[in-house]
């Protein structure tokens, strides 16, 4: 039976197991919007296309499945751009379907036309402009395959409106093989053996684990590896949840706002075993002073990550899980007692800490309370800035896919729509967005989306009246000139209520825990407006361009 292009897209999505799609209609996706109307796919109508991309991304991070979003041509597609770039930087599998103007009009400055493949080229793993209906089904198959395999990433499929209207027989390819793209990489056993040999000689090893652990579901293998060789593990922001922070080998996060003990351990190590991480500048600080005595083993699926910032002694290019499995078969326990004892000393001397005394609400306290009340089992999404760093520092992540944050791009306005996506992917979980009063205003219109679809996420606003992270830099490096960082907002409680959500304002420290419990109990979207200490800072902090053991608020 013949199907229209729009129907072919819908059938293809169903073949890929898509059940939720985040989108916004428009002229160039009318045929697709119509075909989706009868399909067994939940169409989550967002209030801004940027949120569609972030929600699809949050869905992908929470479930491990490919997130799907849809937008019309021109402004619809350009509104997806920030979301695509966010997903690209963090290697999130996503497929975005965009409408395009009629094929005959492409390039003519048609109404709502934008060169979407051109605009998104550098912020997607791959993209397509479909100019022939006979290629539509196979293109969607390829898009999902490319998005989900290798180092994952977003893929855009741009479909002109006339292609959506044409019809032909639907045939969905069962398998796929591309000569120019082969994500199946065999574990390089020679390199594994070399790595094992180097590990054997190490007296001060540190395992440095990133988002690749989450992507390849290597958390069990990572734990086995660390315990087996008896080495401490630090995770990147993207790797949070990849190693249980309650384990005594855990060092927490490293880098600019990492723990003092993680940064000191890295700097004094004789061997860094990097797995699924990319030595980002927020991790390394000043490159020429980074871990001066350390040899580096780098296990990563992406060859371009090797020796990009840090010279690698032994590259191992393969999937994190398979690579760790191979290593686990041959590595032995190391004599690291003295090393672990030293690290324990740092942990005791310079734990993560903030001012506990007094009646003011410290934002760190709010995060700790959310951790305690949810028993560490919630999914925590964040915005970007101080809220993000406190959420990273003071909630102990023990399971993968419970931490959802824009790491690479640092996108304010990400957390709320991502939380909506995450909750739709994991309705069984309590989902929090830990937000600042600045970030939350960047996609606050999604209150309508959440309420209309009964996506009962809880938003904890750490309201300090500032764009706090920038203010912190101004305080430390710009002589306290708070240029354009004091920021006003609405009455968040009234605003939430006006959308049909619930709002709770918390002014006293003594009320924090009760408010969090109440928010969880309310079967609705809840905005928690925590009026916190306005000039609280995120410490420790490595000033930009410094070595990572030169921390403000680190070790005395």
């Amino acid at each position, binding site marked *: 039976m013949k199907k229209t292009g729009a129907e072919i897209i819908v059938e293809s999505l169903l073949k890929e197991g898509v059940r939720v799609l985040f989108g916004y209609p428009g002229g160039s996706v009318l045929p697709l919007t119509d075909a989706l109307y009868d399909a067994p796919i939940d169409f989550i109508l967002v209030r801004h296309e940027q949120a569609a991309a972030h929600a699809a991304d949050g869905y992908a991070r929470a479930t491990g499945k490919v997130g799907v979003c849809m937008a019309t041509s021109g402004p619809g597609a350009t509104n997806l751009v920030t979301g695509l770039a966010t997903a690209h930087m963090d290697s999130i599998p996503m497929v975005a379907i965009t409408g395009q103007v009629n094929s005959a009009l492409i390039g003519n400055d048609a109404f709502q036309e934008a060169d979407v493949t051109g605009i998104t080229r550098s912020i997607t793993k791959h993209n397509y402009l479909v100019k022939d209906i006979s290629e539509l089904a196979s293109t969607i198959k390829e898009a999902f395959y490319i998005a989900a395999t290798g180092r994952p990433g977003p893929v855009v499929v741009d479909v002109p409106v006339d292609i959506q209207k044409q019809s032909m027989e639907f045939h969905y390819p069962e398998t796929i093989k591309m000569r120019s793209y082969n994500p199946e990489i065999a574990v390089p056993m020679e390199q594994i053996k070399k790595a094992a040999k180097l590990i054997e000689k190490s007296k001060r090893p540190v395992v440095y684990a990133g988002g690749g652990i989450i992507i390849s579901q290597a958390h069990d293998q990572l734990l086995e590896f660390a315990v087996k060789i008896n080495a401490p593990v630090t995770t990147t922001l993207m790797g949070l949840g990849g190693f249980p922070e309650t384990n005594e080998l855990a060092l927490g996060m490293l880098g600019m706002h990492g723990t003092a003990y993680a940064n000191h351990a890295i700097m004094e190590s004789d061997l860094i075993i990097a797995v699924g991480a990319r030595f980002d500048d927020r991790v390394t600080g000043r490159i020429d002073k980074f871990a001066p005595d350390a040899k580096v083993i780098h296990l990563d699926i992406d060859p*371009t990550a*090797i020796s990009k910032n840090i010279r690698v002694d032994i590259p191992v290019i393969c999937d994190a899980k398979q690579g760790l499995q191979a290593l686990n078969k041959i590595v032995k326990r190391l004599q690291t007692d003295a090393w672990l004892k030293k690290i324990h000393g740092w942990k005791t001397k310079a734990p993560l800490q903030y001012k506990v005394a007094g009646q003011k609400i410290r934002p760190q306290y709010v995060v700790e309370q959310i951790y305690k009340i949810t028993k560490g089992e919630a999914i925590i999404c964040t915005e970007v800035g101080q809220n993000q760093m406190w959420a990273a520092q003071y909630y102990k992540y023990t399971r993968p896919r419970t931490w959802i944050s824009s790491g690479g791009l640092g996108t304010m306005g990400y957390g709320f729509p991502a939380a909506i996506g995450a909750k739709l992917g994991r309705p069984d979980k309590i989902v929090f967005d830990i937000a600042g009063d600045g970030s939350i205003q960047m996609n606050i219109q999604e209150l309508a989306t959440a309420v209309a679809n009964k996506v009962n996420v809880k938003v904890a606003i750490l309201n300090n009246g500032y764009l706090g992270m920038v203010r912190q830099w101004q305080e430390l490096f710009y002589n306290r000139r708070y240029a354009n960082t004091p920021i006003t907002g609405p009455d968040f409680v009234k605003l939430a209520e006006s959308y049909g959500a619930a709002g709770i304002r918390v002014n006293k420290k003594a009320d924090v825990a009760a408010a969090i419990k109440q928010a969880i109990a309310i079967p609705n979207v809840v905005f928690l407006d925590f009026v916190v200490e306005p000039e609280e800072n995120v410490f420790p902090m490595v000033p930009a361009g410094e070595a990572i053991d030169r921390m403000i608020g680190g070790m005395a």
Partner: protein
Amino acid sequence: MKHIIYALVENKPGVLARMSSLFSARGFNIDSLAVGETHDPTMSRVSLVVDAKEEKILDQIKKQLEKLVDVISVTDLTKKKFFERELILVKVKTAKTSKLKLVSLVKKFSATILSYDAKLAVIEAVVEKKQLIDLLDCLAPLGIEELVRTGRIAIAQ
């Protein structure tokens, strides 16, 4: 140092834009670029010459080229044995010469005179990099009106 990068790619729209943007995003200028279908029309061969001031960055670009979904393979020929050629068409003034003189001048470059009149001559030559410089040196005194180059193409030995 100049590098000749030799890539096999899918013959699809957008491939060249993806490749060239990896250079332009880092402020690298591409000296020359020649692209053509191979004996298999679904694939194209790209010969690209780039002047890399920082070798480390070029290494990164090469890896990123290979990572592009539509790129099948990438080779840096610079340190390998290879043949390279470039086709040039050059228009020179004829006021200071004669056809006979010009024929003998270009002969040692195995060049051909495609047209000749009282004002201008058009010469075609297939040259290696060094020959090109020599040929242009010879022609310069006559007055070069226009020079068109295909860019260097190369093949491994």
